[in-house]
């Protein structure tokens, strides 16, 4: 069976654009310089549609669609920015900030944090809900890295990159609801994980200060490696 991808034409924010039918709204928007806020998405990892920040409006549909998992279709009229979407994005970030301890001033990622940047860009300058501050552990048993669950937003980038790119599948999730937590192997200390290769991919992709390198006061992460890896792998194929 030959896989021929047809090209579809659609409108995003009033612009006439075209995209292959196997591309998502997010990809087509990005190709054309339109940015949609995201947290769980990263080029090179499978999409999970979990953070809900990239929700967009489709003309004629009462439902909002996640741009990261919705494929383009002929004649779609997409709006990526509206008063309603901006409000929802602000509220989702508010919820994230109340969920765990996100006190920027004492965080290793302060100034280099995607959550912080997003909050700034959508104008979320205060939260209206009580802080939940659940008691979350910090695991510093690894020789080079630390995981501070208090900063984790459960975007699962670390879980996916470890499984899909590194192939180790050290990380996974345990529990549900607010009690969901990232664990290494069978919930043992990271330092004792037999599967971890200490490659540091998870640390560099973590959007917040949850995963960080030891002995650094200010963590400036380098997530670019993923794009290089993806391109190189595709070329080899």
């Amino acid at each position, binding site marked *: 069976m030959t896989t021929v991808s047809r090209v579809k034409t659609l409108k995003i924010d009033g612009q006439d654009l075209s995209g292959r039918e196997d591309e998502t709204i997010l990809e087509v928007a990005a190709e054309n310089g339109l940015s949609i806020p995201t947290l769980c998405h990263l080029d090179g990892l499978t999409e*999970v549609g979990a953070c*809900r920040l990239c929700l967009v409006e489709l003309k004629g549909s009462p439902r909002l669609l996640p741009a990261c998992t919705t494929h383009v279709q002929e004649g779609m009229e997409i709006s990526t920015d509206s008063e309603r979407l901006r409000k929802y994005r602000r509220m989702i970030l508010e919820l994230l900030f109340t969920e765990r301890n996100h006190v920027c001033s004492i965080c290793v990622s302060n100034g280099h944090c995607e959550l912080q940047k997003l909050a700034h860009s959508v104008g979320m300058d205060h939260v209206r809900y009580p802080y939940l501050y659940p008691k979350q552990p910090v695991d510093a048993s690894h020789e080079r890295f630390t995981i501070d669950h208090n900063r984790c937003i459960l975007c699962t980038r670390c879980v996916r990159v470890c499984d899909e790119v590194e192939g180790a599948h050290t990380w996974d999730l345990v529990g549900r609801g607010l009690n969901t937590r990232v664990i290494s192997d069978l919930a043992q200390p990271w330092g004792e994980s037999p599967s971890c290769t200490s490659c540091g991919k998870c640390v560099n992709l973590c959007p917040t200060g949850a995963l960080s390198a030891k002995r650094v006061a200010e963590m400036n992460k380098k997530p670019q490696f993923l794009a290089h890896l993806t391109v190189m792998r595709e070329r080899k194929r």
Partner: protein
Amino acid sequence: MSPDELKEIAQTETEAHDKFEHHLNVCMAAGCLSARADQVKDALEKEVKAKGLEHRCQVKGVGCMGLCAAGPLVQSERDGTLYKEVKAEDAAPLVENLGKKPLKKLQCRTDVPFFQKQEKIVLENSGIIDPERIEDYIRVGGYTALAKVLTEMSPGQVTDEMIKSGLRGRGGAGFPTGLKWSTVAKAQNGQKYVVCNADEGDPGAFMDRSVLESDPHRVLEGLAIAAYAVGAQQGYIYVRAEYPLAVERLNTAIRQARRRGLLGNGICGTTFNFDLEVRLGAGAFVCGEETALLASIEGKRGTPRPRPPYPAEHGLWDSPTLINNVETFANVAPIILRGGAWFAGIGTEKSKGTKVFALAGRIHNTGLIEVPMGTTLREIIFEIGGGIPGGKEFKAVQTGGPSGGCIPAQHLDVAVDYDSLKELGSIMGSGGMIVMDDTSDMVDVARYFMEFCMTESCGKCVPCRVGTAQLHNMLLKIGAGQATRADIALMEELCDLVRNTSLCGLGQTAPNPVLSTLRYFREEYEKHLAEEVV
């Protein structure tokens, strides 16, 4: 097993059944069992033996008879006399009285609306056949629909019949079953699956549990017919592990069906192969959501994924998968035997057939009922259900579990169907009905359901994971008398977010109990408000 062999078994069974002069049917479903129906059955058997009546009177364990409030129930098949709250020591007088006038002391009247106003399709065998014997199911016509489908109908004809019937999914969303079947049938792929969703988790709901405990073969037959219609050879029944009796009876039923050649290779002497496996849910409510359920069957963490793609196209292990609820499958055999047009003649314009409801809460006749779509809430609660005990006033009925809403007294005359309940801000759901009297605090009711959603959220998407927790906090604050009008506005805004941005049905419908109580009982919320400081 050929159709002729089926007939033969049915005939032998009927003869064996008719040999007995009397039949004492003891309900052995979970409700009556918990009231020690097993002891009653043992005592009856002993008594029959002691009196030397073992060739004249049969004591049989059967499925649910519906009136769970009055269990353990025993029915004498000959004259239909129903006995309630039977204890082991009642065995002697009951057996003594066989063929004479009914025992007044234990008799449960059956000329009352609870029994008269029901119309049974899904539950037609419940309380009549022994759920642990395939032969008893065959005696009442079981597996003839499967034989008919395999020997006389093409897969397309089966789907057409389902479309004609107008049956809509009984799991809650009400998607047209025939359309779902034809979508899966059309999908191009060698490997396809059928899945039965028996992960019933709504608080107060026990419809699927009863069907599985009372008539498991009916569900297997529906699954096999569906598999034939869509072109699947493998099926799964996903049951929650909290239903041990249902699991046990399902496994027994599958074993029996395999032995009789009604599952496995070459069913009914045709080239059709189909087998089934039971998979147990480990206690997560969210696994009732179809994509989470499929992930769980695959052995992964039970979390939903965005749809589309729908399971009809990308389901189990990426193959096209038909997924229906227990009650939906239980409707299949009668539709095939009596025709889609017959089924479409029952119910309302857009909701066909009957619906099983589990009555719970402040209501006299707690139990399981089946009524035609379009029956009013008043008939269900006050006639069939017998009204509110203790001289209390009816306040609201909660339908649809944590995804549904509370319907107040002024809407009691609404004819129940998918659309009417939705208009009222609730949903049909899977059929749980929790009746509340004037002692219920509606803020606390909303808080209870929000707590349920909060603890059952899978934690994948932010609005559901954190939003439900914040909503629960707000409801606690209101209940404690510490909230202001601004808090209610904030809560309504958050409800709007959770409903519109959550990933799956659990989050999208989680605000419903809050929104519906705000719609009908806003004054109760306001009564709780703290005095505002000016």
